[in-house]
């Protein structure tokens, strides 16, 4: 089913993060909106934004390293495999791992909130 715009989406605020040329692939920004901190990443030209404080002890996720991780499930035949290379955000606090694209915490039942990022008139904008 095609995604219906929610009634409230029209009233969402678009926050300018940076001009596209100032936010190249491989870089990241931390955006603070009021008291909320959002981490925004450019991975190979795609922008991803997620909640910027680790729920464990509040370390800034914008500073986390991106790498892969090990998975082991029915699809891998319960063999351990290296996966999600470059898409796993590692908390700089104590190493909790989050899937950058979905906000899902590896090995936990929760996910971090993710945000839409759009490019308009050469500006990268965070929708929230």
């Amino acid at each position, binding site marked *: 089913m095609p995604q219906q715009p929610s009634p409230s989406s029209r009233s969402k605020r678009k*926050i300018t993060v*940076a001009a596209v040329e100032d936010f190249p692939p491989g870089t*990241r920004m931390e955006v603070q909106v009021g008291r909320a901190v959002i981490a925004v990443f450019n991975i190979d030209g795609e922008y991803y934004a997620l909640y910027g404080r680790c729920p464990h002890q509040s370390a800034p996720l914008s500073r986390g*390293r991106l790498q892969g991780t090990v998975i082991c499930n029915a699809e891998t035949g319960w063999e351990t495999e290296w996966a999600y290379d470059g898409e796993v955000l*590692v908390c700089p606090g*104590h190493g909790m791992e989050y899937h950058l694209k979905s906000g899902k915490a590896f090995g936990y039942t929760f996910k971090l909130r993710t945000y839409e990022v759009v490019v308009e008139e050469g500006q990268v904008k965070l929708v929230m």
Partner: protein
Amino acid sequence: MATDAQSVKVQKVEPSFNPVQDEDLDQYSDELAEYTIVDVDVHVDDTLMFMLDYMEGHFRKRLETILQVDFKGEPGNSLRNMIAHIAWLGSSYDKPPRAKLASKQELLKRMEKGIIDYSILFPSELLPIGYLPEPKWAAALATAYNEYMVDAYQNLAGIKIAIVVAPQYPERAAEEIDHHAGHPDIVSVCIPDVGVNPPIGDQKYWPIFEAAARHSLPICFHGIEALIHDNYPLRVAHFPTLMQVNSMGFPFTSMLQIMSVVCAGIPVRFPNLKFAVLEAGLTWMPFIMYRLDAAYLRYRTELPALEKKPSDYIRAWHIGSHELEALPGRGDLVKLIELYQGQNTTMWASDWPHLERDLIAGFMRYDMDENLRRKILGENALRFFGLPPQK
């Protein structure tokens, strides 16, 4: 949803190749300004190269030999890395990024923020000495460490030192305590308790307790996740992963040593001796207190020296909050502390700058009244280590 009224700040950031250090303190600087803060578990770079100038004869030669080793990219002088992590090397795929050992400059920078009133320095690399098989070598390393630490870290505002002793050589440990006890910056005796065999209440160790009691120096037991040893209660064969070592190694060791000290009647023989346990978390405290009480009921006659039940002794032990468990509710830390009656004995500890150090947010997220927060952040530690308040 964001409203137009909210301020926006955008900042370009770089990934952190070392775990973020100290930023957590900045984040809470206004809130923390009010409190006296004692960080009761702080580590500085004590890799073996610093010990070289403090060793003589064949032990110096031996240390020179060690310093030539390159251990898989780790500094060859890291006793900890050489014997602590080898079984599980690389198992966390370098995540989180490796913490550096803190230099003296980094420690001073942290103190200059004016947030922490006292840092109590504990050994880092020397923590595995408890299970080195050669008592004289362990004691020589302890002596060198203590002399180095006094030379390098004395007379610095807010910095206090715990000397380390090698429990496998109790007479030398007692001499070490006698030698350093009068120094105004020495505030505790650290017994690295992992791998100590037999457990630390054994009569062979009593010279250590006698010496500490003689000088009214509190004893701190400090664990380490290293389990390359074959001693009860934890043998390396029980732990196929470092995660299991890290979670159970500390509290199991602490529980064993507490049980051993209490059942040996040491608190009765040395009534002015104070004890603390560091780096084992908090949640097991109610377990060991009331579990021992339950058995005491039936087997008290085995422990005729005890004048009260085990939990009445253990209640007086102090405990460092690191590695603080993330309990489900914001009110749960207070409930836990009520269970072990630790309002006057729980002390905030960060374990800075180790990988698993606690960020202050981990403690501040728990709800508690001001009075209790004040005690845990500083007042309990001031009393335990005999430090004058600074604020």
